[in-house]
């Protein structure tokens, strides 16, 4: 992370109370998940270490973003603000744990920050309230322009206390027509933080740029661009501002779309019509050694890899309607996946977390619109994620498999929406103007 010049674990815990006899840090998973199920967090306001405007403003942002980040995974409970305000303010160096115990907190997150010498310094300490024992102590320093990124980093560090990997530093790429004009109805790629903030435009060619997919290292995107007149795959190295054209080596008037990297980043699945019909192909990450995986005259499209990379799901209308099918990465052992969830299924997204054996996809479950659904491999049960939110499509999983992002059209506008994997909570990301669609959740 370039922005955070230094992330250091504080060498010694300030002597809150005499450290218990020298012992290994407690097994953290057990504390949060085992010993304390859905532990109750107190996240009091960040305490500025200087009283200047910059330090106070940074602290306000840190508090707000850290609270939102910690709530996102729905793993914890939180002491309400009214109770936080009922006790004396936090002394971040020496918290009075009895106060925090008194309002039912099990875990206390104490944050301090200051802006000095054009640098933002943040310290985060996480205490087990019952014992006063520090569980985590981190100091972050870096450029002060984006305090949100400090909070995201701290949240992901706190999530390391659980068995789930946080996603607060992840980003989402999507397609927007916000910069289109009547003369140039372009679609460009944009990247936002997982919470919809900090939008950045990636492509600037005023053509159609669609179907973006992250390379697993997070440093590049593969996408489809029409900038040379027909759809071809491009690789955008986002930190260098460079692109590689025609990654799949289309010749003549063959075209390619629906690219997707394997989880190890070594293979690229895509769709090409170079053999006379739209088929799923696989190649090296640089497009070398392409092999045709499907050979029907039907429309075979939209491949996605399993978490191991051994299997590929895709869409085919070989039986008359678009349905999800499975095959191995050699194109063998082909079998149909969706049988009971409507007559139009497309856009697979395999949950990257191996403990969830499931695929999200776009299904036409009711006449007219589409919804996001998830099919469980073991039971073949389909659970509907969206309902009555307009037409939703193009699902992509968070890297830890606990949330989905997709786009929904409501009131004639496409917007990026996030849901947890059970479909209980929804959040529309305020990514900016225009139609915003085709999201892919990156590392």
């Amino acid at each position, binding site marked *: 992370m370039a922005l955070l010049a230094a992330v250091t674990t504080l060498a010694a815990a300030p002597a809150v109370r005499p450290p218990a006899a020298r012992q290994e840090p407690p097994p953290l998973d057990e504390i949060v998940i085992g010993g304390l199920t859905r532990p109750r967090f107190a996240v009091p306001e960040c305490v500025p270490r200087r009283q200047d405007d910059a330090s106070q403003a940074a602290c306000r942002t840190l508090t707000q973003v850290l609270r939102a980040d910690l709530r996102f995974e729905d793993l914890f409970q939180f002491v309400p603000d009214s109770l936080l305000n009922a006790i004396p303010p936090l002394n971040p160096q020496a918290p009075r744990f009895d106060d925090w115990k008194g309002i039912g907190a099990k875990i206390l997150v104490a944050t301090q920050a200051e802006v000095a010498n054009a640098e933002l310094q943040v310290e985060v300490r996480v205490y087990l309230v019952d014992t006063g024992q520090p569980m985590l102590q981190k100091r972050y320093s870096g450029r002060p322009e984006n305090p949100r990124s400090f909070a995201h980093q701290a949240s992901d560090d706190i999530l390391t206390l659980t068995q789930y990997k946080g996603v607060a530093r992840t980003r989402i790429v999507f397609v927007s027509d916000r910069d289109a004009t009547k003369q140039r109805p372009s679609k460009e790629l944009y990247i936002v933080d997982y919470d919809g903030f900090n939008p950045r435009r990636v492509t600037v060619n005023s053509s159609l740029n669609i179907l973006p997919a992250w390379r697993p290292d997070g440093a590049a995107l593969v996408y489809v661009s029409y900038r040379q007149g027909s759809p071809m795959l491009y690789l955008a190295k986002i930190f260098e501002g460079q692109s590689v054209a025609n990654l799949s080596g289309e010749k003549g*008037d063959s075209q390619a*779309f629906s690219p997707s990297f394997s989880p190890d980043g070594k293979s690229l699945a895509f*769709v090409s019509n170079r053999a006379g019909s739209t088929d799923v192909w696989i190649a090296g990450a640089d497009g070398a050694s392409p092999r045709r995986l499907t050979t029907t005259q039907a429309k075979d*499209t939209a491949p996605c890899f399993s978490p191991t990379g051994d299997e590929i799901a895709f869409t085919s209308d070989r039986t008359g309607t678009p349905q999800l099918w499975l095959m191995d990465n050699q194109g063998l052992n082909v079998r149909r996946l969706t049988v009971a969830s409507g007559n139009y299924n497309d*856009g697979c997204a395999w949950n990257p977390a191996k403990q969830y054996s499931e695929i999200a996809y776009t299904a036409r479950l009711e006449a007219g619109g589409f919804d996001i659904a998830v099919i469980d491999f073991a039971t073949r049960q389909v659970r509907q994620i969206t309902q009555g939110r307009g037409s939703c*499509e193009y699902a992509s999983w968070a890297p830890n498999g606990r949330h989905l992002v997709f786009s929904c059209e409501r009131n004639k506008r496409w917007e990026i929406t996030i849901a947890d994997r059970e479909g209980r909570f929804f959040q529309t990301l305020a990514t900016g103007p225009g139609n915003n669609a085709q999201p892919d959740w990156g590392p």
Partner: protein
Amino acid sequence: MPFRKQSRLPVGFVVLAFLVLAAACSGKRPPALATATPGEGGSAADEARARASAQPLEEGPDVRAVEGEGASGSDIPGSGLYPGEGGPLADIRFDYDSAALSDEARATLERHALWLQGQRDVRVTIEGHCDERGTVEYNLALGEQRARATREYLASLGIAAERLRVVSYGKERPLEPGSDDAAHAKNRRAHFNVSR
């Protein structure tokens, strides 16, 4: 669609008769056919626009860096690529979720073939488009199938395949922004971008 129904069969026959004839005299088509009426009236301006819009974009930056001090980009000046309805060759329409050519579409393509026979230096990019009632990815495949079916029929009418390029736009560039049946019908189409 404003095509006159009564003209469909005769034009088809003319094309077929012509093709048989052309095959018989093995090669040169009479230049008189250059004046054959295109499928739908296209003014010189329409044609010029179609020609302009088929030009590739100028080379320029493609992506820009999102962080750090990497290269930054700027918009490429130049023509848009708006695949409207204009141009010398009228669009053909398709049924929902179908790439099958209707009788009406075939009749239109037969007129297009006749015109193309007379315009030997014309190349055509056939764009396959879909209405919004489908998913992004499946619609790209459907648009490809529509464009390819269109090309195959034109090729069967004697138009050299090298002159015909197919591009699928899926539902990414609808002609009509509306969501009613009329807009959907207009958007399920093959569009012809003509260049020389």
